[in-house]
């Protein structure tokens, strides 16, 4: 689907080139630009997405997966840049909860990201200059509107299910609030209706680390041929701690030393946990763009569904909704603790919505939603089966 003068494809990074070669994309906003929340009209813009399975004849089996901050559209396949298995392989695939034999599964690289969709690395179509920090600040609602525009483009009227964890869960909530008639069922996992002060604080540490890196150069690092690798790595290290629970860190690493028998009395990575975090940081730099990290974390910080859609009352964001909801949280998740999901459940009850809510016992922290959690799979399987019955999708196979 190459639109007129595909947006400066010669300016793509290696990662973007590899990503776009392995997925589909659409150029949107050519005639009608996307009206961003910040007031900027964005267009044309590129949306990279991946699909698994086939859309059925009455277009009733589409499932949209919304990806979290550092994942992308390569949900269930070898990643074109890292070579790693898909980030939600455990959930998506033949015989899995989301089986491509039954559902038409779509995952869209969010606006502002760096895996093929338009973000700060792209060029401003007005002056041909790289956006960098002049790229408009996008929000979760903007990401969702871009996804909705893609569905229009693909001729998909509504979604059987919108599902996602963490930032993906925020998008799910935004979808349900903004386009209730297009969402038959919604599964927000390990998320919240707004980003808490603590979460904003951690993001700010990450952003400051990036901006304090002399290689960042005010966001113009590509023009200078530099990479703010150390700053981005520190941002990732900080964030990674928030994804794990204290128990998980203790169980995995304790105070075990790394490749040595005694303390080194220096600042090398004496401890395994240090070495692990350094590895997480350095590999992240290979697949993620520093400016994108600023933008996407900002989008999460700005998310406050009650303020944006309910005049301060979350229930009002869901008034009259016919969507079937299933919320999932994890006992050891301190980034998006169970009480945040419970607050959403309370609001949905106040809107008399059809809602299920399961808290899964796990010591793996926020990351649990990406891991092998049989209780979560059972929950999602049961919920989706109930929703499929209600939608008349039958057993599908």
């Amino acid at each position, binding site marked *: 689907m190459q639109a007129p003068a595909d947006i400066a494809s010669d300016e793509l990074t290696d990662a973007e080139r590899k990503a776009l070669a392995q997925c589909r994309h659409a150029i949107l906003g050519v005639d009608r630009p996307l009206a961003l929340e910040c007031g900027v009209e964005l267009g044309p813009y590129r949306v990279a997405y991946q699909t698994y399975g086939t859309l059925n004849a009455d277009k009733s089996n589409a499932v949209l997966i919304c990806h979290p901050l550092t994942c992308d559209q390569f949900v269930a396949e070898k990643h074109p840049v890292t070579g790693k298995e898909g980030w939600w392989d455990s959930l998506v695939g033949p015989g899995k909860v989301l089986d491509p034999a039954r559902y038409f599964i779509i995952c869209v690289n969010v606006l502002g990201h760096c895996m093929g969709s338009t973000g700060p690395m792209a060029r401003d179509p007005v002056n041909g200059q790289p956006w960098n920090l002049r790229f408009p600040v996008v929000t979760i609602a903007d990401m969702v509107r871009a996804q909705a525009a893609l569905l229009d483009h693909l001729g998909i009227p509504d979604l059987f299910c919108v599902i996602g964890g963490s930032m993906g869960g925020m998008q799910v909530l935004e979808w349900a609030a903004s386009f209730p008639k297009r969402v038959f069922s919604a599964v927000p996992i390990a998320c919240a209706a707004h980003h808490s002060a603590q979460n904003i604080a951690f993001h700010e540490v990450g952003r400051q680390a990036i901006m304090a890196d002399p290689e960042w150069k005010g966001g113009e690092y590509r023009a200078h041929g530099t990479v703010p690798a150390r700053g981005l790595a520190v941002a990732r290290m900080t964030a990674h701690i928030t994804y794990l629970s204290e128990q998980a860190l203790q169980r995995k690493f304790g105070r075990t030393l790394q490749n040595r028998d005694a303390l080194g009395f220096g600042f090398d990575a004496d401890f395994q946990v240090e070495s692990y975090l350094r590895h997480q940081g350095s590999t992240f730099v290979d697949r993620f763009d520093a400016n994108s990290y600023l933008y996407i974390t900002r989008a999460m910080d700005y998310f406050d569904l009650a303020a944006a859609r309910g005049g301060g009352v979350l229930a009002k964001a869901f008034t009259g909704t016919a969507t079937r909801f299933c919320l999932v949280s994890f006992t050891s998740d301190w980034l998006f603790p169970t009480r945040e999901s419970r607050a959403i459940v309370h609001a949905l009850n106040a809107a008399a919505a059809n809602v299920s809510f399961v*808290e899964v016992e796990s010591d793996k922290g926020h990351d649990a939603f990406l891991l092998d959690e049989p209780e979560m799979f059972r929950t999602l399987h049961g919920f989706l089966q109930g929703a499929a019955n209600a939608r008349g999708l039958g057993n599908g196979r």
Partner: protein
Amino acid sequence: MSVIAPIRVDLQLIADMVEPGGRALDVGCGDGSLLAYLVSFKRVDARGMELSQTGVNACVANGLSVIQGDADTDLRDYPDDAFDYVILSQTLQATREPREVLRQMLRVGKRAIVSLPNFAHWQVRLRLVFGGRMPETASLPYKWYDTPNIHLCSIDDFRALCRDMGVRVERAIVLNSKSRPIHMPPFLANLFGEQAVFLLRRD
């Protein structure tokens, strides 16, 4: 959806009181057997609330719409008239504030269905009067120190509460110890009934 097994007699009586096609909330839905029945056989948009997270997870894994919640605190969230029926089976006596729970049920639901063990059943009376010990029976199988039932009442007590609250009893079915409906004048029903099911509405 899984095959529906026969449900407990009192649950069947409750299910029979529910008109098909409406909306129902089962408070304290346990393993969800009543919900599953209402969804499958009565085409009811049925939701559940359950205190135990294990129970909730099992229900949701069976495709039922259930949340973890407490009858004493979480009915307040729902708007007025959100449901045609709010059901509370064998749970009112375990709530902290039964009167408030009943009030909330009839605010949230157009009707309420309540089932209760009868503390004036003759076996209970005998055990207390002649045994001199707190009664343990089939429907009250706990020791005094570990019972969740902190607000036990008799059938007549419950009727009196309904009168006080201006709640109309549309139907009352009293079951004997073999879970068979009995048809007796109220003072005998209060003696021979082991449990009762009430269909209630605001007057």
